[in-house]
């Protein structure tokens, strides 16, 4: 499906790709494009693109949705028919919100929120950002306040981590594991683990030796409380998964046309296809383009001809021609690698190319320029 129709018809676009390919810029531009066409759009990002946020009038971009002021559009000479909203994901707040939502009462809630083990898994540790991104997406989608949500996924080394996060967390909190962990802890009570005979107790004794008892108590207590929350948690994770493969959702894969990022992109692509995730579009970002259709050889010949006619300007002509030839070579190289990527893909792909701009994109006018390329 062409990107223009994705923007018109889908209700969730998940923008993914490896780090440094311009996901945030592309996400914001997609959001702008849809808002221009009359939709109410929310762009969720993880990356603090401070300059971009500043120039969009989003000085305090936090875990809450903020509407881009009309003035910012007017200054760029734009009059969107819809609305553009932005927010920055905050892992910890998202987690806490979720606990508040699924905890049956205040005491359970506080016991989880105050548990040191919980506090640690929600902040620094791997997967929590990815998990909270999907969780937030689900929450927003349930509220049904936006026509389109564009999710700029966290920058992971393996873009795939994003897909695995909910499952990893769910299996971590799986009831069986909890029972295994909590069981000996409860049985042990004041007797201590030493008197237990099961395999779990043996494992526990090892853990106790290396970790110290208090830690285990924290973990066990966390699981104990979480046992009651597990069903709610797992049900949500399953729904998140459903939402990801829903026909109203599409993945937009962003990549640069250069090798390391293309390689990651092809892994991600394989994964999306094998999991039946709805891939909408591949965006090749920062593609070298040449300002001419001439070949490098033609430039060389024209250069020679020019120098003969204008011998006093030979230095300038040589320098300009060398520079133009370099631009042509880079453009050709990008064209070839994009072509190869599309050819090797397991299924035909829709794609657009956004050229390497002269400067960074960090304001509304810049985003609008990108929009024009996205719309094709």
């Amino acid at each position, binding site marked *: 499906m062409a990107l223009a129709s994705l923007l018109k018809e889908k209700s969730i676009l998940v923008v993914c790709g490896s780090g440094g390919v311009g996901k945030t810029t592309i996400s914001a531009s997609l959001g702008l494009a849809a808002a221009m066409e009359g939709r109410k759009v929310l762009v969720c990002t993880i990356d*603090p693109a401070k300059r971009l946020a500043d120039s969009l009038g989003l000085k305090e971009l936090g875990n809450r949705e903020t509407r881009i002021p009309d003035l910012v559009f007017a200054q760029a000479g734009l009059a969107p028919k819809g609305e553009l909203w932005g927010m920055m994901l905050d892992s910890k707040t998202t987690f806490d919100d979720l606990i508040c939502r699924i905890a049956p009462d205040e005491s359970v809630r506080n016991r989880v929120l105050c548990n040191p083990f919980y506090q*640690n898994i929600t902040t620094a540790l791997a997967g929590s950002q990815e998990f909270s991104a999907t969780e937030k997406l689900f929450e927003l989608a349930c509220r049904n306040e936006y026509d389109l949500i564009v999710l700029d996924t966290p920058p992971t080394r393996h873009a795939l981590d994003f897909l695995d996060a909910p499952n990893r967390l769910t299996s*971590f909190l799986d009831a*069986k594991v909890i029972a295994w962990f909590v069981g000996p802890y409860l049985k042990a009570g004041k007797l201590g683990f030493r008197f237990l005979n099961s395999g779990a107790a043996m494992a526990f004794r090892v853990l106790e030796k290396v970790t110290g008892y*208090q830690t285990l108590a924290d973990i066990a207590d966390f699981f104990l409380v979480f046992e009651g929350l597990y069903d709610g948690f797992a049900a949500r994770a399953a729904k998140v998964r459903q939402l990801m493969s829903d026909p109203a959702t599409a993945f937009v894969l962003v990549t640069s046309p250069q090798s390391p990022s293309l390689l990651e992109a092809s892994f991600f692509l394989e994964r999306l296809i094998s999991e039946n995730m709805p891939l909408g579009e591949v965006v090749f970002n920062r593609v070298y383009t040449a*300002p001419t259709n001439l070949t490098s050889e033609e430039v060389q010949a024209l250069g020679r001809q020019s120098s003969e006619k204008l011998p006093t300007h030979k230095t*300038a002509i040589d320098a300009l021609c060398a520079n133009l030839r370099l631009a042509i070579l880079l453009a050709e190289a990008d064209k070839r690698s994009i072509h190869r990527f599309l050819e090797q893909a397991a299924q035909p792909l829709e794609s657009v190319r956004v050229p390497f701009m002269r400067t960074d994109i960090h304001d509304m006018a810049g985003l609008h320029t990108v929009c024009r390329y996205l719309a094709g």
Partner: protein
Amino acid sequence: MSLEAIFDKRIIFMTGKGGVGKTTLSMALAWAAQERGKNVILMEVDNSPNLRYILGKDIPVYKETRIAPRLAVFTLEPFKALEEYAALQIKVAAAARLFLNNRLVSYFMQAAPGWRELVTVGKIWHTHQRTVGRGKNKHPEYDMIVVDAPATGHGLSFLRVPAIFADILKFGRMQSQTKDLLDMLRDPERTIVNVVSLPEEMPLNEAVTLVEMAKSTMGMQVGVTFMNGVHPEPFSPDEKAACDNLRSDSCALETLGNIWPCGGKALFDAAADRQARARMCQEYLDLAAKRLPTPIVELPYEYPGRVDMDGVKRLATLINHALCGGA
């Protein structure tokens, strides 16, 4: 900190936003160090295709692979590191395996947070402790460990984990081991963090955040900045003057117009493109000079953003050249 001083450190963490060329520069720094006679190991936290690209071949995970007489590479793998650690703790390897292969333990380990990062730092610590020779000849096996940090959004968060564990572990053997890790990370004589960035907004912001985090959250010593992918000024001063001269010669422009399609517009457009990029790079370099650790080692952009071993050697030469006061 002087660039020279980083070569006296034992452990060098290379951090920065994803896609800035950390692996390439880690390799280049390691190569520069081995050229100076150091025995070096490059430890890669994540198994990345980039290192394999550079080497032009696949290398095994969790195995020291020598790629030059004084340079080895090593890809960390948490499960392997855990197995090694457990074997050291339990002493009986079979029992360690039994423990780790316990269905529930392995199930739990698949999902449990934190331990991956902890054993990763643990393995780095262990490698830096290893010695060769006896008596007076006893010395560390590796003079320098270059750590290619992960490329996730917060590439240093794996270094925060020892502090987190130190916080939640009240006593026990692991508590004191965790303290050893923290001591290593926080010892400015042994360990530094270098940051890699591109002359672009987001990588630069991230670099600033990472440096701040290394300094205040983790209490680590910050080293230098590597500014990768700098688009150089496309023309020499002479060429630039000649181009300006051409532009103001209307007769010459008319002649060009007769030879080139569209009056030779492409020549000037392509020049303006690259000049704009070079100017933008300069702006970010100026900003970096104010906000990132100095000195800033500038490394030129190389198409196609992918570097092989020859490219690494070129960068190593540039680093060593910058060291001699060329930067």
